[in-house]
């Protein structure tokens, strides 16, 4: 199957960081992810869109190794995705998962899990707090923060391990515009430092802001992929056209 997401026809770009080859995931006898080929090159920002149930979150979890594919696989720098490769990835979930501890306690936990030596942790935690603009709230219970602050903390925890690739599953779905902006700013900073990002979003505006490339999923398959602006401005595939027009895509018609 042709890889719709590999835009490097001239072969000039950096070698892929992560590739999926015929990635398939099934549950209850249904193929929820169906033969997805996708190439992620270092420093790119990819947005993944698609209607509910298209498999966006599943695809993210498969790439991050949280789920095991039924068929096909994920390659990290051309090799199988293993624990060491996983350590170079991080993920932010739609609903931030925070421990029942202080803000600082959460960051220390993430740094420790990522194998950062004890003597380096305070400085790294301080740095992460500043990045998330949570320095004044270091001692506050994490789960008493506002939704926006919680998601910034979750993002800071993910970035604290200095990942190469960051996966984000609708990170601002339940946030107000100001909080959304703050999260996107953190993302932009991370990208400026060379972090490759893959963001699932339902918001076309966000896709343009946090994506260079767009992958549009429909029923577990890549319906269309390419540069974000040209895809959203001039969709060619039926599913994406239906989506931009606010219609449900009904393949039988």
């Amino acid at each position, binding site marked *: 199957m042709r890889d719709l997401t590999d835009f490097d026809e001239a072969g000039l770009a950096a070698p892929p960081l992560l590739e999926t080859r015929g990635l398939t995931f099934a549950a209850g006898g249904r193929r929820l992810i169906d033969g997805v080929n996708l190439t992620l090159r270092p420093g790119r920002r990819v947005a993944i869109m698609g209607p509910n149930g298209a498999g966006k979150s599943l695809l993210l*979890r498969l790439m*991050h*190794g*949280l789920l095991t594919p039924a068929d096909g696989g994920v390659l990290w720098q051309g090799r199988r995705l293993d*624990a060491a490769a*996983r*350590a170079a*990835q*991080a*993920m932010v*979930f739609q609903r931030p*998962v925070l*421990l*029942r*501890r*202080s803000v600082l306690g959460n960051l220390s*936990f*993430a740094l*420790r*899990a*990522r*194998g950062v030596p004890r003597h380096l942790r305070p400085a790294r935690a301080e740095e992460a707090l500043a990045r998330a603009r949570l320095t004044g709230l270091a001692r506050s*219970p994490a*789960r*008493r923060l506002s939704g926006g602050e919680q998601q910034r903390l979750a993002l800071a*925890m*993910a970035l604290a*391990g200095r990942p190469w690739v960051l996966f984000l599953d609708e990170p601002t779905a339940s946030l107000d515009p100001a909080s959304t902006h703050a999260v996107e700013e953190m993302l932009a900073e991370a990208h400026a430092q060379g972090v490759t990002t893959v963001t699932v979003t339902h918001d076309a505006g966000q896709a343009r802001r946090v994506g260079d490339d767009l992958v549009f999923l429909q029923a577990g398959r890549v319906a269309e992929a390419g540069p974000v602006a040209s895809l959203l401005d001039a969709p060619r595939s039926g599913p994406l056209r239906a989506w931009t027009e606010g219609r449900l895509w009904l393949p039988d018609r």
Partner: protein
Amino acid sequence: MPGLMEAFWDALRLIALGDADLWEIIGLSLRVTMTAVGLSCLIGLPLGAVVGAFRFPGRTALSLILNALMGLPPVVVGLGVYLMLSASGPLGVLQLLYTPTAMILAQMILVTPIVAALTRQVVEDLNEEYAEQFASLGVRRMERVAALIWDARYSLLTVALAGFGRAVAEVGAVLIVGGNIDHVTRVMTTTIALETSRGNLHLALALGAVLLVIALLVNAAVMAVRHTAQKVAYA
């Protein structure tokens, strides 16, 4: 019933005057029960957390067994420990029968499954929330168990409390392995049983009242801790 009222006033006087025998009995009761609950938590918390946090062959069976053991009849446990510790039993050489140590052992056997089974439930629920984040961060197995226990700390306090309630009120097992020997293994529950059968209602009543107050105080303390925690640090 003049006899009962009289016994009641006698009981109050005993408590108010701080009767030495009474306090000895209360002290031993608390020492045995708290040691047993403490040791049960040392075993039951990690055991329950491991069963709650990981999938492994035999996990369902183990959960089932732990749940079933929560309902162990104390007299059966007492009998089992008695047979183990009696002179002809496998642990007879330790000469522990009719000592507080034997009572602690029996209560541990009663309380550990309660702590483990309830911990499993609490940790399993919490793990459902944390599992993906832990996997994403690459948290190692033992760190996961420790983090789950720590983050469930206030729920687990209630678990320990359930164990304490079971142990402090229990009479069958400590009577069999302790023997209710005056000044050696006499605790509140065994004394109440003995004095009631002897007709010494005032001492039995006094101890019954103390037992109730202890249960009330321990519960109040745990509630206060939970309440403060929820206000300041734990959400």
